[in-house]
């Protein structure tokens, strides 16, 4: 069941890749109406899709009986999203850099790196089964933007 105020949402979804589409569409539409830039919207879209598929595949291990919780809130200057799965968690520091050495030829392992590149703040709960991502609105954070993706 979803609980909503205009720019906040908490929703529990089925653990299958396509399940995020509706929430994603709703969130991106809200970002547009809150005057987030196209660049911000693209970044949030990418991060949410990647975080959700990680939750389905690595967190819940493709188990359709499990669920994924998404919380988001949009304020004047930022969007904050959390994606929580029912898995046992992982250690983000143990994920290899997909740009280095032979990793560049690997067919997976880029999702978390892209999330970190496109979002301003990325952290995990202690268990490692909840990712929190924040992106500041581009036009209000010029200093932060120059640091991004560096």
């Amino acid at each position, binding site marked *: 069941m979803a609980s909503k105020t205009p720019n906040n949402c908490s929703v529990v979804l089925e653990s299958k*890749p*396509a399940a995020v589409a509706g929430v994603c569409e709703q969130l991106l539409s809200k970002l547009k109406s809150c005057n987030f830039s196209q*660049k911000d919207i*693209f970044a949030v*879209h*990418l991060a949410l*899709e*990647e975080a959700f*598929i990680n939750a389905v595949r690595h967190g819940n291990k493709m188990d359709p009986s499990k669920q994924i919780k998404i919380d988001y809130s949009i304020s004047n200057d930022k969007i904050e999203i959390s994606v929580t799965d029912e898995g046992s968690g992982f250690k983000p520091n143990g994920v290899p850099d*997909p*740009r280095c050495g032979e990793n*560049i*030829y*690997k*067919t*997976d392992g*880029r*999702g978390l*790196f*892209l999330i970190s*590149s496109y979002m301003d703040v990325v952290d995990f709960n202690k268990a490692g089964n909840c990712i929190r991502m924040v992106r500041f609105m581009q036009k209000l954070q010029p200093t932060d933007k120059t640091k991004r*993706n560096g």
Partner: protein
Amino acid sequence: MVPIKPRISVEYAENATIVTFTDEKILEERDIQALQDSIMSVIEQADHINMILDFCNVNFLSSAVLGLLIRISKKVYERQGQLKLCKINPKIYEIFKITRLTNIFDIYSDLKSAAESLSASD
């Protein structure tokens, strides 16, 4: 009839097979698997293939598509062929740049220059 997604169009030019992604978004795992099946089948039909992947319609993709491109490139290179990518929009090009895949893929701004690069190396 319900259209089957994702769709590609395939054109056989003089020195290359041009595969154009016709969908704007390439996201879902089953779509990516379907794309892989279609493109691998095109590659397997020839002993030697030079392929150009045209992204002119694509405005969003996930990291799983990057994995697909690597699988395609391995298959093309196994057959002593070449793979070129073209018409990647700036937002998506940034994904290639951030992940440093610009170092391993030959990317061109348009179809003509991608085709010319094949002619030059043949």
